[in-house]
């Protein structure tokens, strides 16, 4: 026993002499990349942009107070990502570490040509995480990475997660992780989709003019077109559609909501529509998904027939008219109107995707149940058959609550009740 213990201790101490010989890197030997941007390169195949935090201390520190973290950006032209990283390390004093990278931003130009090359290549490294978010940017990815300076907080990673979490609240774009993207690229059930972002030059924010007469929904914009001023320069809105690895189309905000509803990922959103009795006024609902959609796929002579039923529920958020929609007579009117409206949006989305022949909704997942072996399924090749599919949609909608008002009484002016 004594010999064994002494041999073991000897071994431990000898091995301890090899501390930090190989793999140990101090925290301050790394530089942590927050965002990776991928562009079509000019000098070489691809252009990579990295955003790194600068850990300089500004001014006099008192016992552990930390100042603002500033970031700086650098762009490289390189054939592949890891070669690019190597080039970058020749002008930084630390190694680049992308274990904490949360965003991988791809420019639209590159996405339209095909992302397969570098998506497959990047995932081999152990540092890239499959939970990173894939984002498509209209314009240059390098510009996005440079301009990514969130206004509300200096904690970049919190802001990154926060931006992506907004899609739960609004439904205006989807959130794709690297894992989801690769999976959808390679599988036989559905096609990938990714959130779109763009720069808003605030030109849509006109200072003079009249609002449109017809109903314009809040989501009827593509990324970069939101009529606003102030705030971060970039905005996340809409979805990019991919056929395999090439980007083929875009969805605006409303259509992204439809996509989420069909996928069963829609959580909540505030949806406005025109008042059925008074076309100039608007009604908004705080819509939530009641349960997952009911999708059934049937085959008839090789042609797929898809029946979709979507379940939504909502609370009335604002009524601009004074009709008593809250009571039981007029409520079904409202519900019907909303159902029609939503069905319209959904059908529009499905048609758009059918034209592009991309099944981003995941109908293929339900279709696979009809096949017994993988060989049959792959022979059938669902992804090519989507354009022939006939899709019937149905929307179920129930108004649950009316907020803190049970009744809206009309305003009284000098001329009596306003109607």
């Amino acid at each position, binding site marked *: 026993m004594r010999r064994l213990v002494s041999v073991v201790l000897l071994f431990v101490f000898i*091995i*301890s002499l090899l501390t*930090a010989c190989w793999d140990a890197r101090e*925290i301050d030997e790394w530089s*942590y990349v927050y965002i990776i941007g991928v562009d079509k390169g000019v000098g070489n195949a691809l252009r990579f942009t990295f955003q790194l935090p600068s850990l300089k201390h500004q001014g006099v520190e008192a*016992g552990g107070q930390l100042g603002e973290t500033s970031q700086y950006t650098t762009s490289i032209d390189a054939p592949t990502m890891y070669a690019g990283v190597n080039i970058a390390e020749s002008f930084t004093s630390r190694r680049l*570490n992308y274990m904490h990278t949360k965003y991988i931003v791809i420019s639209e130009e590159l996405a339209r040509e095909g992302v397969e090359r570098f998506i497959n290549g990047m995932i081999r490294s152990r540092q890239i995480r499959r939970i990173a978010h894939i984002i498509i940017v209209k314009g240059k990815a390098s510009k996005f990475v440079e301009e990514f300076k969130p206004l509300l907080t200096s904690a970049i990673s919190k802001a990154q997660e926060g931006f992506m979490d907004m899609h739960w609240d609004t439904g205006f774009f989807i959130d794709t992780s690297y894992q989801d993207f690769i999976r959808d690229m390679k599988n036989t059930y559905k096609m990938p989709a990714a959130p779109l972002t763009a720069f808003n030059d605030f030109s849509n924010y006109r200072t003079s003019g009249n609002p449109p007469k017809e109903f314009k929904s809040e989501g009827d914009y593509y990324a970069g077109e939101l009529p606003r001023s102030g705030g971060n320069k970039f905005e996340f809105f809409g979805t990019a559609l991919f056929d395999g690895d090439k980007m083929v189309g875009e969805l605006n905000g409303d259509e992204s909501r439809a996509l989420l509803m069909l996928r069963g990922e829609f959580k909540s959103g505030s949806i406005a529509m025109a008042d059925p009795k008074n076309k100039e006024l608007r009604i908004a609902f705080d819509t939530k998904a009641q349960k997952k959609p009911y999708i059934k796929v049937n085959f008839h002579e090789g042609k797929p027939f898809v029946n979709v039923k979507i379940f939504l529920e909502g609370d009335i958020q604002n009524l601009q008219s004074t009709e008593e929609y809250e009571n039981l007579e007029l409520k079904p009117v409202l519900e019907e109107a909303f159902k029609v409206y939503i069905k319209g949006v959904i059908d529009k989305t499905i048609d758009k995707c059918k034209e592009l022949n991309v099944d981003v909704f995941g109908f293929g997942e339900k279709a696979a149940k009809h096949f017994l072996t993988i060989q049959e399924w792959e022979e059938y090749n669902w992804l090519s058959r989507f354009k022939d599919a006939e899709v019937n949609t149905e929307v179920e909608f129930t108004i649950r609550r009316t907020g803190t008002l049970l009744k809206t009484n009309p305003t009284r002016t000098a001329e009596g009740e306003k109607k």
Partner: protein
Amino acid sequence: MKTITDMLTYKEPKNKELGFELLEDEVQSAPKQSSKSPKHPLTVEEWNEGRKAENTEDIVSTELRANLEVIRQKFLMPKNRDIIIREFKIGRKVKAFMVYIDGMMDKQTLNLSIFPQLMSGDVFEELGEECPVNYLMENILTVHDVRKTNKYSDAVMQILNGLSALFLEGSGECILIETRGFEKRNVEAPKTETIVKGSQEGFTENLRTNVALIRRIIKNENLVTEMLSVGNANHSNCAVMYMENIANPKVIQEVKKRLERIDAAFVLGDGMIEQFIEDNSFMLFPQIVSTERPDRTASFIMEGQVVIIAEGTPFALAAPVTFFGLFHTSEDTFVRWPGGTFLRLIRIFGLFCATFLPGLYVALTLYHIEMIPTELLISVAKAKELVPFPTLLEVLIMEVAFELIREGGIRVPSVIGQTLGIVGALILGQAAVAAGLVSPLLVIIVSITGLGSFAIPNYTLAIAIRIERFLFIFAGAVLGFYGISLMAVLLSYFACSMKSFGVPYFVPVAPKTKVNPDVILRYPIWTQKERPDALNTPDRKRQGDNPKLWISEDNRDEKGKGGNT
């Protein structure tokens, strides 16, 4: 050179008697063992001992002058001023002398109960034909405990223990009178094991007091106290206490055998005894538990363990013990079961923190930075910009400094001691951070580690954990989480191969024995019906089938009352 060849050559495995295994045998179902121990055939040693008694040199002679010479010689008088020889005449007729050690005898007893009776004139009035020694013992000596012996060695031993020896002219025996009365400490609150809800009596250095404290708790005629003498030169007394029908006789035998075979000149107190009789000296974990409280000792005895109390230190040893037993304190028993479970869980959490936390921190920051949340990472990185040391060195500096503070704090005079401990450590930490020597996160980690190690109830185990922590720090620094896992597995290999007096160390988890509802989580006291299975006690039942008999009795009463209310 020899150590290297020693290490590399193959040696036959020594068949030590440590192959002692506490196996299940048929004794466990026997209700009560016979109170008489079976007669063993005499071994050679015992027979030799018997023969030694006929060694004439040791026999007390009938001549008083000769006895006096022998005693003076043995005690190296007149150099040795401690021994007092009081010569007098018994009953004004018979010459006699009394030998005792100044300071160890009770003056009151001698002056009031012994000398007056012996020196009065009418002592030998009614002496008939009988031996004067017997006559004295039965009629004259009004002391509570007298014995006689005819051997010098015996007499000398007892004189050294504090008794007085009375030698008579014309008698070949001497009378040993119990006159012990030295200065000793009062029974005070235990210094190392304080609890909130429980008795506040602790052991002292005097063996008699300690045994009496236990006797006050276990008033059972089957509680046996055997006295042994350890240490060839200092002959320290050692009491082995156990319950005759509960403790496994093999364990008792093994304990006594190991104690008797200690061949050292100076053995004082339970610490040294523990180191002599434990199974594996080269393991970090203790295999015998020591305690300062009599209530805890009593519970050990009632569980079937054997308790060893030695003179000189206020601690008692109990064997055999398992790893989970080191986490029990008497607080758990005196508090209700949710409190007991909660306290135990906190202690185990403290154990984990104390062992793993610095190692995990080193491994995380050097190898696995992906686990740290990004914002925390950036702030740690920023703080580390100012620190010139690598992480491993930082951690070692802080750990060693903490250990220094701990060790130094023991010896600081108690007036400043308290303040230095807590405030000093934190302020030192703050100052170190401000000076840019360590990063702030590290101060927190080291303090939590220290607190975790304070939460471990057993002192020896806490020291072992403090040593192991350094092993984990090195392992984490070399190979990250891989190194920590390997080190953890290595240590568990060593720990699981340990046996404490025949009981495997990690019972009842590995190997599996019947679950005792008191290992980690403490179930209510009325569920603990049987004694721990691993100790193989002859008598298993601790409580009856329905320890809360008052419930069924109440029910019967209620039914009888009917509709009176």
